[in-house]
């Protein structure tokens, strides 16, 4: 049933009217899942909105929202929107300088934050963000001795709101009625692989168009359960935990803490799941580690049946013909391995799972589908409210992101860049008409910056960022992310950074995964004294060399990419970290920045040296600075020739 309402607050009131008694949200608190019905949520939002209004917050202002996924923070979105104001979620783990920029750029006067940690950050920033007046906090723990001006607890604000509501009973309803589809509903700051973050302004109309499209596409109804665990400042979470829930009327579950997500997921058993590839990767890494620790017979069973699943699991999911023998084996495997494994992953009830935000390696994607989990890819950006392409349930190819969603038009520019026209298009970049003009063509297409093409079946295939795709000196195509993703599929490799544009060969930085490699080292009776030491071990180099040679073998099979095999690599002495600006907040590698920061290492890779000394500055979460020093060895790889492969 299509629900009426042009703006999110209107949708909320409509849900409260037609399904007021159904559960809208849950949060695990003190070990017990607490729930709120749609009617209760509508009341909470009403009081919060009135409370904010009583403090002078009104149309035209922006409300910063900072914290983990908490019901009250989600209500703050609706409350701000009810007043015609704009919620601006910030990444809660952002360091102060990043927050300072956004607070100033968005002209924030009011902020609603989760706890003491965020309050401390804002108080530290306040002298440099003079507009910031009022800070509201949800969790009162540790806040007793704070007497700074402008601080107020959520509970107090809620009380003030109830008073205000009693005094002005018509205020909220009138305010919601006056919200319009064309109003800006949310401002999401892009992580920005280059330059300073920009505030992407979406209207109610564009977010609701995206959500309606998604809900219609997969037939989501009020019975879906989702777990909201992704950063609230990410478009993916906003669409999935807020916009879609508001359109479809399903239940959003907030985990107890960011560390308990896996446990909470098992308890809730979501029917619909969304995560960037990284999350799926982490889950697989954990599974792999635990399988490696299991008894030999279990290990053998796992490997045997995963082989069966790889052979026929995806075919069964997509309804293609499979031999009787394989069907029987798969059924047995389902009983012994797949179903218990799905249960451990909390994916027993999943109808649809999506991944997006970055390219997913085919191997990783295949793993989940072969288990019978309907994992699909979607494609979109913050600017298009992540609503461009989605794979359909039946027909799924590994290496494409699917067909355009209803209402979306795609064309490919001459340089291979994907251009998109969608009803979910951003209104503008906040206060950046120049950037807005730059990224939208005169005929109304958004320039995605991704290189790709539409294949014979009408599916969109993304290769890489348009500006990253390069060529080696001999003209071979070089798609760095493509190779990096292949490397990262190995559980031992956490990050990889490839270089090669306009040079004679491809070289790579590798980041080992401490958990996975540490576990491996333990089993080899290899002692080590921390990350730097482990990363430099000869044995670890041999381990990684094996992974790299696998990737080279894979590349050798593709005549276009055979020349872009990794010729030399080194293992970095520190983990790439968003705090050091090496990754974006959504954990994409910032290749250019890394190349500059580790210039001596890049030079060494290309000059043929076998080792290079480096001293690196690291920033801790509290802003302090330290140094890590190490001498890194460089490993040469012998190229795999396609000819030898054939033989």
């Amino acid at each position, binding site marked *: 049933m299509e629900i009426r309402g042009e703006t999110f607050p209107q949708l909320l009131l409509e849900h409260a009217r037609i399904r007021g008694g159904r559960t809208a949200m849950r949060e*695990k*608190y*003190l*070990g*017990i899942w607490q729930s709120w019905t749609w009617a209760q949520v509508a009341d909470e939002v009403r009081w919060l909105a009135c409370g904010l209004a009583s403090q002078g917050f009104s149309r035209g202002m922006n409300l910063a929202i900072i914290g983990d996924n908490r019901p009250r923070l989600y209500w703050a979105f609706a409350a701000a929107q009810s007043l015609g104001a704009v919620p601006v979620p910030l990444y809660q783990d952002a360091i102060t300088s990043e927050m300072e920029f956004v607070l100033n750029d968005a002209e924030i006067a009011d902020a609603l934050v989760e706890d003491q940690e965020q309050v401390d950050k804002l108080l530290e920033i306040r002298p440099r963000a003079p507009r910031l007046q009022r800070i509201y906090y949800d969790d009162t*723990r*540790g806040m*007793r*001795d704070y007497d700074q001006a402008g601080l107020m607890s959520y509970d107090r604000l809620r009380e003030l709101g109830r008073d205000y509501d009693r005094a002005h009973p018509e205020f909220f309803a009138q305010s919601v009625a006056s919200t319009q589809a064309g109003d800006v509903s949310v401002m999401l700051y892009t992580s920005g692989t280059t330059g300073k973050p920009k505030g992407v302004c979406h209207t109610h109309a564009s977010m609701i168009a995206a959500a309606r499209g998604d809900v219609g596409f997969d037939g989501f109804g009020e019975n879906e359960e989702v777990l909201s665990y992704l950063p609230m400042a990410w478009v993916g979470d906003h669409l999935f935990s807020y916009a879609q829930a508001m359109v479809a009327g399903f239940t959003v579950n907030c985990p*107890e*803490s960011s*560390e*308990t997500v896996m*446990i909470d997921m098992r308890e809730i058993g979501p029917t619909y799941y969304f995560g960037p590839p990284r999350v799926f990767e982490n889950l697989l890494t954990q599974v792999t580690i635990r399988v490696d620790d299991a008894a030999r017979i279990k290990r053998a069973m796992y490997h045997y049946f995963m082989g069966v699943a790889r052979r026929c699991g995806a075919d069964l999911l997509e309804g293609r013909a499979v031999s009787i023998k394989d069907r029987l084996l798969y059924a047995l495997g389902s009983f012994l391995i797949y179903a218990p494994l799905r249960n451990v992953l909390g994916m027993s009830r999943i109808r649809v799972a999506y991944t997006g935000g970055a390219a997913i390696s085919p191997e990783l994607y295949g793993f989940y589908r072969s288990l019978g989990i309907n994992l699909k890819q979607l494609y979109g950006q913050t600017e298009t409210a992540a609503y461009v392409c989605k794979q359909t349930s039946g027909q799924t190819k590994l290496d494409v992101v699917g067909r355009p969603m209803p209402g979306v038009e795609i064309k490919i520019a001459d340089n291979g860049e994907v251009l998109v026209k969608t009803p979910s298009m951003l209104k503008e970049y906040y206060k950046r008409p120049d950037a807005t003009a730059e990224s939208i063509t005169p005929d109304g297409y958004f320039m995605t910056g991704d290189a790709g093409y539409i294949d014979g079946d009408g599916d969109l295939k993304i290769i890489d960022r348009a500006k990253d795709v390069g060529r080696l000196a001999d003209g071979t195509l070089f798609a760095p992310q493509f190779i990096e993703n292949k490397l990262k599929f190995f559980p031992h490799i956490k990050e990889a950074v490839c270089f090669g544009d306009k040079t004679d060969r491809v070289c790579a930085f590798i980041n080992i995964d401490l958990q996975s490699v540490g576990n491996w080292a333990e089993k080899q009776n290899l002692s080590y004294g921390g990350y730097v030491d482990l990363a430099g071990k000869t044995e670890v180099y041999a381990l990684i060399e094996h992974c790299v040679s696998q990737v080279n073998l894979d590349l050798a099979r593709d005549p276009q990419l055979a020349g872009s095999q990794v010729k030399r690599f080194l293992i970095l002495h520190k983990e790439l970290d968003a705090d050091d600006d090496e990754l974006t907040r959504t954990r994409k590698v910032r290749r250019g920045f890394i190349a500059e920061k580790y210039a001596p290492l890049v030079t060494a890779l290309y000059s043929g040296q076998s080792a290079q000394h480096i001293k690196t500055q690291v920033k801790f979460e509290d802003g302090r600075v330290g140094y890590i020093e190490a001498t890194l060895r460089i490993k040469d790889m012998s190229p795999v020739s396609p000819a030898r492969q054939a033989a």
Partner: protein
Amino acid sequence: MSASKRRIGDVILKVENISLAFGGVKALTDVSLDVRQHEIRAIIGPNGAGKSSMLNVINGVYQPTAGSVTFKGVKRHQVRPHEAATQGIARTFQNIALFKGMSVLDNLMTGRTLKMKAGFLSQCLYFGPALKEELEHRRKVEEIIDFLQIESIRKTPVGRLPYGLQKRVELGRALAAEPEVLLLDEPMAGMNVEEKQDMCRFILDVNDEFGTTIVLIEHDMGVVMDLSDRVVVLDYGRKIGDGTPAEIRGNQAVIDAYLGVKH
């Protein structure tokens, strides 16, 4: 952290002229110290100075050969451990003393044992008052889990946890008894920097949120000087210094004890 804002009250625990000997070994000789309500009191000293012995005397594990312990106005020559516990003194141990095979939750529930009043039969049948009581205890324990941010390991057997977390669970177990005075025996021994920071944070929060008086033994001087309101220094079983961190820092006898003197 604003120590000045906490209301430090009157003396809650007073140890007078304690001597303790094991055969010919004199662990403590005529030591007196007092602890005020809501304060964080550190006991420091070189190895074998008698710090742990002091804690053991306070909560009755050791019986002093001379001297008395006054807790909340009641003077005793001998304290028994269970008396100390019922009166509101809880402690953690230098070597973690948890039930390794039991989950974190169950370990914390053991901290509530003294507060369980329901009869044996009704507990067995999980019926009537026992049921109500269990719910209350569980709620209290969940509050502590929330407080110490150990939700993710609620059901993990303690033996499988890393050392730093076990220490945190042990603190939780002591907190579960809702003590007035908390004795911490080297809560940060063997931890890395990050774990130490977390533990410091928790100790301050316990002191601040619950108003718990804390007596702690610690070797990390940075931690001691940052955390404590007053410090007492023991050496060879004798008290050689007592005062604020600043005073202790300037105390010649303490400097000599730590750095040694030329003879």
